[in-house]
């Protein structure tokens, strides 16, 4: 995933091609000029202080989002088509990565994290949630180490989206306080909702009577698992729950299928 930085050798004149001799690199005869990187339209800014190698990692990661899976492809196109872009940083901070809805910034805490698509997809979903929930997700964030009401709703929605995209994973109940019984029940539900991982739920709370009934059935299970998730001992995502409608989940899965062109 990490590629070498591209360095162009540019000579002011070319009599006898001094650049053919490595001894001339960096001398007046043969200047090494690092080209401006053409930033992907998803990248608004790269943080100051990033090395060329780190910039390349981020550029590669953003490129991967275009076709990593149908979900990242949809979200990437959604942002680019709506002229939405983000800041990208690699610097010390919380966990392996964060998304700030206030500054629209992704921060990865190491080069490895910035190139790890599990971490990147997680944070990318948070950006999509920020775009999908009315008023953004900043209102449900952490202030002075205290999670606002609704924080757990956002984290749980992200985990469920991730577990439906990466069928077989149980991110929501892989937390250390969760039990095998909880993981079994949750995975059985994910299996049923996604028809053995072959489809995504299509949810329409304002549709036909059948669609509304299907939505209500989904929400009943979803809220039940949300309560169980919020009650996991030691869950750092615990907060007062608002039982928010999972707007990002509905928007994403109503617009994508398991296979995409």
């Amino acid at each position, binding site marked *: 995933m990490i590629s070498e930085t591209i360095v162009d050798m540019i000579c002011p004149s070319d009599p006898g091609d001094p650049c053919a001799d490595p001894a001339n690199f960096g001398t007046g005869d043969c200047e090494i000029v690092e080209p401006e990187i053409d930033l992907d339209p998803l990248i608004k800014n790269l943080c100051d202080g990033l090395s060329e190698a780190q910039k390349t990692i981020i550029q590669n990661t953003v490129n991967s989002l275009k076709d990593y899976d149908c979900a990242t492809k949809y979200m990437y196109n959604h942002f680019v088509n709506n002229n939405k872009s983000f800041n990208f940083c690699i610097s010390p901070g919380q*966990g392996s990565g964060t998304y700030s809805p206030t500054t629209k910034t992704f921060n990865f805490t190491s080069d490895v994290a910035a190139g*790890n698509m599990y971490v990147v997809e997680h944070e990318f979903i948070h950006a999509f949630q920020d775009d999908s929930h009315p008023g953004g997700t900043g209102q449900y964030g952490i202030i002075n180490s205290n999670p606002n009401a609704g924080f757990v709703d956002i984290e749980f929605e992200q985990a469920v989206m991730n577990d439906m995209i990466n069928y*077989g994973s149980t991110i929501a109940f892989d937390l250390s306080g*969760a*039990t*095998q019984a909880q993981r079994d*029940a949750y995975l059985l539900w994910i299996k049923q909702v996604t028809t053995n991982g072959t489809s995504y739920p299509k949810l329409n709370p304002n549709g036909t009577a059948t669609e509304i009934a299907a939505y209500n059935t989904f929400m009943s299970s979803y809220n039940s698992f949300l309560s169980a998730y919020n009650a996991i001992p030691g869950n750092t995502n615990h907060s007062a729950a608002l039982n928010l409608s999972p707007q990002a989940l509905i928007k994403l899965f109503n617009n994508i299928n398991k296979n995409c062109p």
Partner: protein
Amino acid sequence: MKNLIFILFAFTLCSSCFAQTTLKDGRYQLDGKFFKVTKSTYLDKTSFSVSVIGRYWDKPSPSPKNPNGLPINKKDIHFDIDNTKAIVNDVLAVNSKKLALNKDRIDMSFTFLQDGSIEHITYFFNGNTIISLKDIAKIDMELKKKIKATFSGEEYKNFYLIPFGMVSVIY
């Protein structure tokens, strides 16, 4: 007339046998292990999950060494999936035609320990499965005896329990 009644009786009997589900909600003891069978219906479709009640069934699973560590990439978990499917097929070989007729399937979610041994397998089945708990107990015993994982990368070292995800055998 007698023949017709006999045919109708035989047909009714046969249909009810075929539609009979072998799994039922509850806790069972088999070969010294306790199994939990859970039935669940979602939008008119019924499914079962079956688990051996292990040490983390209703107890919190252990924490990773570094809670901020990177997640494990599925590509870093290696085990013989073809052999896993072959073991399942061997146990169910006698019923393979019936299983195919019934469009049966087994989905298995694996959790490994750092030494590569299997800590837990959760089994999932269609609501009309004809696979018995006795078959599942045998599959579980065989898989735990014969399947071992290896790991690459560094991330797995952070976790006591290493989940893999699903392996499916479809008839």
